[in-house]
Each structure stands twice: as structure tokens, then as C-alpha cells.
């Protein structure tokens, strides 16, 4: 508890509102992307938007931006593992 008392990490409400507005705007982008013909870029585009949204939630709502480096590191280990799983699985699907 004393640790938290030293670094309260309480953000002004305006930051949360700004992040929330950003998330809503990005949701709008995802919906809007449906109406633009991007062909094979469509899926990568909405995946990028989704990644940005998830990152915003992690950094601000889940406070990862203000934690010790160990926590972002652990999250990165999980994400990189997942990425490797996908890449290795596609070494089968792409060349079958």
C-alpha cells in the first residue's frame, strides 16, 4: 500500500474521457472501413485499428504505462509467443 501512496497514478478524468473518445472514434473507423473497397488490405487495416484500441486500453485503463517495466515485459512475452504460434502455424497453411 505504501508503494501506491508514493506514486498515486491517479489521472485527471479528462485523460480517460480523451482515451474513451479515441476508442469510440476508432470504432467508427472500423465500421467506416466496411464501406471503402480496400480489397486484400481490408483485414490488415481493421486488425491494425483493433491493435491500437487494445493498446490504448492496456496503457491507460489498465495502467500498464505507469507500472514497473516487469509488467509490460510479461505482456510482451505473451504477445510475442502468440505471434510466433501464428507464424509457425502459417508455415503449414501458406505452403500446403
Amino acid at each position, binding site marked *: 500500500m505504501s508503494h501506491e501512496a508514493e506514486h498515486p497514478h491517479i489521472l485527471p478524468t479528462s485523460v480517460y474521457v480523451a482515451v474513451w473518445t479515441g476508442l469510440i472514434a476508432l470504432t467508427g473507423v472500423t465500421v467506416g472501413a466496411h464501406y471503402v473497397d480496400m480489397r486484400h488490405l481490408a483485414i490488415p487495416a481493421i486488425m491494425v485499428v483493433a491493435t491500437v484500441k487494445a493498446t490504448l486500453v492496456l496503457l491507460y485503463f489498465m495502467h500498464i504505462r505507469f507500472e514497473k517495466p516487469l509488467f509490460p515485459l510479461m505482456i510482451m512475452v505473451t504477445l510475442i*509467443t502468440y505471434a510466433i504460434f501464428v507464424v509457425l502455424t502459417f508455415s503449414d497453411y501458406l*505452403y*500446403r
Partner: protein
Amino acid sequence: MDHKRIGIMYLLAVGLFFTVGILFAVTFRLELFSPGQQFFSNGVYNRLLTTHAVIMIFLFIIPGIPAIFGNFLLPIMIGANDVSFPRLNLMSWYLFMIGALIAVTSVIMGGPDTGWTFYVPYSALTEGRVVLPIIAVFILGWSSILTGLNFVTTVHRLRAPSMPWFKMPLFVWAIYATSWIQVIATPVVGITLLLVLMERFMGIGIFDPTKGGDPVLYQHLFWIYSHPAVYIMILPAMGVASEIIPVFCRKTIFGYKFIAASSIAIAAIGSLVWAHHMFTSGIADYARILFSLLTFLVAIPSAVKVFNWMATMYKGSIRMETPFILTVIFIILFAIGGFTGLTHGALSTDIHLHDTSYVVAHFHYTMLGGGGVMFFAALHYWFPLMSGKMYNKKVANLGVALFFIGFNMVYIPLFIAGMYGMPRRYATYLPEYTIWHRTSTIGSWFLASGLILMLVNILWAAKKGQKCAPNPWKGLTLEWTVPMPPPEFQFKDVPVVTHGPYEYATGASHE
């Protein structure tokens, strides 16, 4: 909520399931005594086989060392009074028991007949009871994740301040690496099994090609978890070996940092080799080459450990006590299991050996000869600490000898029969395989009596054994500084670690 009590509760439950698993194995080996049908129909044989595998994998070897000895010893070894989340720890035990009860219920109701891998399309179509065991495995996985999470947090947060990472006992390193695999890989199998249920009940075409699905995708998803799971089984066993060998050789472990790092390397590379179970499933050639290479790479950190153990024994003053004998047996059996594994890693030989009894022999050498033997080594090593009593060493050694003879009698013939083309999981065989199967069945009686003798000996000692003097093996790790058996709060003050875990040469001691 005491971590030691939870460890003992796991010990009793796991010991019971293990005995049941052995009885199933001995029972279906009877069917193989002669060719043709003896005692069971093919359907019953399939169910016995599947149930043996599900019990041994999910109820014995995965929880075996981490949940029992990890729970009991990990906090003591790092100078803590409990794990980070004691209540969560108790919840893991309840989840484990709920999962186990559901699994047992499914056996009583007829049992699954799919093999423990639940491969689609069969598992999505069969009349056999696969829903209950799938739910059971899902809940057991949940328990496994929570235990892993608890241990990772405990190692990071509750280590005694005087114990830096590289002064931790190697068993703690092994459990730490295992816990990471549990946390990262287990959710994948949970998702996969839920997908099978969705396909079964809602007809969603995830794995069924007629609906646009891909059956091989199931194998990918299943083995993404289940291959790392074999490292959940073997890494803690290697950790126990790294504890026992220096104690009984009175020498510092050879290459501490390499053993610690090889645990992490096995956890990391071992997570990237899953498709070697699928070389004959019609995956892309490019993928087969990649996974074959990755598979051969795992041999390196495994060999690092084996060579370091041998180097530790070299010129040590060895005491041949039961835990040490079991550890030597482990090294021999595990080496045989490891080398025969390479023949599956090579693409050409795998086509000949895939799905033969050679594979069965190979993984029993690594799993029972590795994880199983080290479970018993750990039991015989830490039993005095857990109970404050000593077992009858002569009876224990007799059990070990019976086990060793029986073990090789069971599996060496299966290697040979497999090379001649005997398929695995078959209830019958051609007459020319009779000699191999008969030897194997007779061996299974020795193997089972050896294991049961060891278990009974331990149980008897727990009830009526002689009191044991503190620190009977003269170990230097922290668990031997506390009273035997340890009280609920083993450390009144945070212990100060002044020497490394294996510094026998410098004359360090607890006295």
C-alpha cells in the same frame, strides 16, 4: 490454506489416481498376452486405453511434481511462509478435484474411446462419451493455470531478499519455467476443446471439411498446448534431479547457470516444436522441415542437463540412497527415451515409426522413466521432511529394482515390435508379435508390483515409521533448516541466505 497441507492433499489425490492408472494399464496389457480376443471387446479395450492415458496425463504426471512438491517446497526453498495467493491455491485444488471427479464419472458412464488426444473428426462424431472428459480436462487446465500463476508471482515477489535469482535452488528454477508454460500454453487447449464442443453441439464448421473447416487445424491447436505439456511433465523432474544429485555426491552442481538457463531454453524451444506430432498428417513440406529442425534443437538444452549431472557425479563421494538410485535410473531411462525421440524428429524415419508401438515405448521412457521415476525420487527424498519419519530403505530399494526390471521388460519389446510394424492402440496383433507382447505383459506385472511396493512402503512409514533425525541427507537448501515436519509458519524471521544451494566443497552447513 497452508501450502504444505495443500501439497499433501494433492499427494493423496494424485497417488490414488496413479494407482488406478496402473491398474488400468495392467488390465489392458492382459488382453495383449495372446493374439486375438481374450477378455475385452475392441470397444472396451479402446476405453481402457483412453482412460489410462487421460488419468496418467491429466491426473498424475502434469500435477504430480509441481502441485505436490512445488506447493510443499517452493515457498520454503525461497524463504517464504506461503505462496503469494494462498486462497487461489486452495481453489486450484478444488478445481483439480472437480475436474477429476467429472473424469471419473465419465469413466463410470462408459468412458471416452478416442485416445487421449480427442482428434477430430472422430471426437466430434463418436457415440463414446467425450463431452464429460473434455469438460474435465478444461477444468483441470484451469487449475493448472492458477497454480502456474501463483508460482510465478511467488518466485518474483516472495523470495528472501538475501536470495538473488542465481542463488535459488535449481528445483525452483525448473518450477518457475514450468509455471510459465502452464500460464501461456494451457489456455490454447481450453479454447481448442471448447471448439470441439461447439462443433459437436452447434454444427459450426471449424474442423469439418464439408463445412469449410480443417481437421488438421485441430491437431495444430491441440499440440500447441500438448507438446509444451510434455515439458510441464519433464522439467520439474529435471529440477528434482538437480537437487538430489549434488546432495548425494557432496559436490557443487556442475554448471549451475547453464542448468538454470537450459530449463528456460527447454520451455521456450519446447513450445515451438508441436507440429512434429503431425509429420504424417499431410502438413506442408516446408513446415515439416522447419519443425524437424526445431525438434532437434530441443535436444541441446536437454543434453546440457544430462552432461552437467554426469559431471557433478564425477569424483563425488556418492552415497547410494534410494532417491539417488532412482535419479540414476532416471538418467538412463531418460537418455534412452531422448535418443529414440530423435528417430521421430527425423522426417524419413518418422514415416516408418509413426503410430507404432515404438512411439509408445519412446514416450513411456521419457514420461514414466523421466517424470514418473523422478516423482518417486522426490517422494523418497522429501518424505522425511514432509512427515518427520523415515521409510524402510531396503524395501524401497527392492521396489526400485522390481520397477527397473519390469520397466525394461515392458518397453524394450515394444520398441522392437514397433520397428517390425506393430501399430499402437490395437487390441490384437498378428501371431509373429506374440513373443514381444507376451514379454511386455509379464514385465508389466513386475513394474506394477515394484511401484505398489514403493507406495505401500511409504504409506506404512507415514503411519508407523521411525522418527527421523533432522536433515537426514545433509542438504544445504533452505527446506532442511526448518523443523520436520514443518509447522504452519516455518520461518519466524525471513531467513538470511549466506551460501549457495550446493556449496558442499566450502564446508558450508546448516549446523
